[in-house]
Structure formats: C-alpha cells, structure tokens
C-alpha cells in the first residue's frame, strides 16, 4: 500500500474492497434491471390511469382516483410487504387449504410493487402535462375532423409528454433509490449486499458511505442523460 494506514483504517478499507464486487453485482443484476423494467411498466400504467382520470366516465375516473389514492396514501414498504408476504396467503384463505401458497418470487413482487408506485405518481404528472396543453389544440384537432382518440394520440400526448419529462426524470431517480427497499423482500439488490458486508465486518460508516456514493454516481449519470434528452425534446420549439 502507498498510504501508511493504521490497522483500523486498513480494516475499513478491506471491508470496502470486500463489499464492492457484491454491491456492484447487486446493482447490475437487480437494482438497474428492476428500475428499467418497472419504469416502462409504470409509465404504461400511468398513461392508462391518466387517461382514465380525464375521461368522461365517472366509473373510470373513480377507479383511477382510488388506485392513486391507495398508492400515494400508504408507505411503499408496506405495499411491498403486502405483495410479497401477504399475497401467498391468499391461496390459503381462498381455497381453505393451508398447503396452498401462492408464492411470488422476490423479483416479481418487487416489479409489481414498484410499477404500481410509478404508475400512480407518474399518472399525476402525465395528467398535469395533458391539462397544461391549451384547449385550442384539441379544438384545432377536432376542427380538422379528428376524433377523441386521434386527438389524444397525435396532438395532445406528444406535447404533454414533452412537458412531463423533467418531472418524470425525478420519478426515475426516486425509483432507483427506492430499489434500496427491495432488500426487505429478499431481493439481492445493492443495498442488501452492502448490509450483509456491513453486518459481518462492523464497518458501517465505510460501507454505507460507499453505497451512498454508488447510488449518487448512478443518479448523476442518469441526470446527465436526462438533460440531453430534454434539450433534444426542446429542439425547434425555440425561435
């Protein structure tokens, strides 16, 4: 070693080295893939919920509002526990057979839980984006003979999405950080890996600072990509 470390410092450094590879594995194999999959699924749910929220049908509006209210009104960790630990018991309760467990793989439970979350939060963002588009756009689309679906699809959504991108970028960053909760439902993601090493080496400060640094690097890269994407979407709008 180039540095002259005392034995405590050496121990901390060794722990960090020991933790790094498992953490990176947790990041690459779980945290990032789960984030990407849930973000896409979540956006699909969000779009559907946003369209339901602005629909003329009271029933559709009610369903969407109820869903959003439940997700936003309960802690995500509780939702994840219900899905992962609770749903298997549905089999037992519904079929009156204690052997009948509808077990979900941790990753599947994680994807369901996070997608529902992204769906609820992003739907409010997309709805805001849709509402921000002037009424004249809808009228112009109608005036050339478009129906509701064509108007939403070709005129309103492309503009609403552009307005929503900055806020959706924040949702994406939150999502990456929220994957740190998935260790509690046994997904071997980055933070869980960090905890495992921390609890055997007792180097809490080092390990948790290291994991914080890794989340930060990932988020930093994403925010750079997001900036590029935003300026790409802005092209041609400024005269």
């Amino acid at each position: 070693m180039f540095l002259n470390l005392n034995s405590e410092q050496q121990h901390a450094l060794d722990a960090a080295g020991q933790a790094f590879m498992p953490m990176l594995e947790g990041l690459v194999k779980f945290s990032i893939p789960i984030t990407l999959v849930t973000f896409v699924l979540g956006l699909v749910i969000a779009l559907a919920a946003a369209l339901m929220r602005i629909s003329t049908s009271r029933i559709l509006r009610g369903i969407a509002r109820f869903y959003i209210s439940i997700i936003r009104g309960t802690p995500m960790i509780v939702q994840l526990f219900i899905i992962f630990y609770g749903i298997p018991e549905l089999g037992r309760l519904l079929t009156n057979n204690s052997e009948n467990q509808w077990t979900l793989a941790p990753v599947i439970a994680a994807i369901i839980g996070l997608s529902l979350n992204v769906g609820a939060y992003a739907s409010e963002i997309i709805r805001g984006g849709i509402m921000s588009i002037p009424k004249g756009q809808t009228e112009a689309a109608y005036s050339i003979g478009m129906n509701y679906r064509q108007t939403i699809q070709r005129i309103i959504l492309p503009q609403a999405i552009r307005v929503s991108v900055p806020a959706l970028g924040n949702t994406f960053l939150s999502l990456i950080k929220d994957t740190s909760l998935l260790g509690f439902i046994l997904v071997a993601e980055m933070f869980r890996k960090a905890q495992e090493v921390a609890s055997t080496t007792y180097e809490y400060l080092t390990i948790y600072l290291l994991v914080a640094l890794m989340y930060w690097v990932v988020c930093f890269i994403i925010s750079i990509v997001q900036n590029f994407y935003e300026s790409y979407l802005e092209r041609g709008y400024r005269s």
Partner: protein
Amino acid sequence: MIELQNIKKTFNDKKVIKGIDLKVNQGEVVTFIGRSGSGKTTLLRMINALELPTEGAVYVNSETYDNKDKKSQIKVRRQSGMVFQSYNLFPHKTELENVMEGLITVKKMKKAKAQQQALVLLEKVDLTAVKDQRPNALSGGQQQRVAIARALAMNPKVMLFDEPTSALDPELVNDVLRVIKDLANEGMTMIIVTHEMRFAKEVSNKIVFIHDGVVGESGAPEQIFNHPQTTELQRFLNMLREA
C-alpha cells in the same frame, strides 16, 4: 348550404344566444359583426359543433348533429374548416406536417400523397419557403396562413373564420386578408367573424349584425354600413368610427 334553426345557447343560466335563424347559400360570404360578448363567435363555433346549442338545430351540407352523438358531430365538423383567432397550429409539427396531419390521420392518405397535396396548399398561401420550420419560428401572419392551408387540406364545403386577424400585428393583417379574399373569389362558402369592417364590406355578400344574442340586422354590406336601420347598429358603427 348552412341552416341554423332557432338556435339558443345558455352558459350557466346566462342566455348568450336567444333564438337565431340563419341561412347561408353555396358560394356566399357572410360576415358576423357585433360587440364582444354579443354571441357571434359562439354562433360560429356551433356550425362545427365546437359549441353545442342548448336548443335548435344546425345543418351543414344537409348533415346535422345531436348533442349526445359524438359521431354525428364529427360528421358535421368534416363539412367545414375552421380558422381560429390564435391560429392553434400544432407546435410539435412542422408547417408541412401541420397541413398533412388531417390528410394522414383523418383521410388515411399515404404520406407521399399527403405531402404532395400539402405542398400545393402551402404554395397557395405563399409559404413553401418555411415548410420545414416549426410554428414558433414564424410570424403570426405566417402561422395564420398555415392554419388556413391546414383547414383547406380537408377539402371543406365551408370555411369558418373566427376573428382571424385580431391577434396579428397590423402590418401582417393584409397578407391573411388577401388569402381569404382569394378564397372568396374562388367561390368558397365562408362565414367570418371579424372586426375589420373595411374588409367585411369588401369581401362579404351579406353582413349579419348580432346584438345581445339575436340578429339585430342583416343585409348587403352597402345597406348595413351606409343605411343602418336600428339604433343599436348605428351606435355600434359610430363607436367603431370613433376608435
């Protein structure tokens, strides 16, 4: 061509249109004049079902609509083209794409053919040079001419103009009025809401003065502007002269 039968419209208990009957024949250019709030824009918007009458019926090219039947409204809407005060071009599309949009989405035309037709229309409003620009890069006058081309692309039987020059800088007004005049000369049936009285006089076959939700007076431009019969119209014209 267009027939409005006993149209009434109430907005939150406020009677905006109190019973209007009107006929517009093929090839006629009819201009609605009147104070702001007189109901002239509301009446125009009913002709393409952007506004629905509380009572009465609207016929355009023998099509009519029911307030509860969206399909019938779309059918009526497809008879007419509308030009708005604030242009309402699609900002995420180029000028050419704005004109092509209806052809592709509504008429299901192939892209190449739509492009060809759109170019002819942009040529007509003298804007081929900016076809690949976005609306924000254009002046209001240019945007309004694109909006006219976009409406014409759908091959409407009637063109509706809702104060097409009110939002424009004075030096840009004439370019837009010239395009509208050209359309009139080609025999297009048109209904125009405008505050440009000189233009109204030149281009219209008939002027309809709308006052307080009813037709106050209507007739040939010469009669309306030079021999107004009612005190309301006289007062309205005097007010404009003073301004």
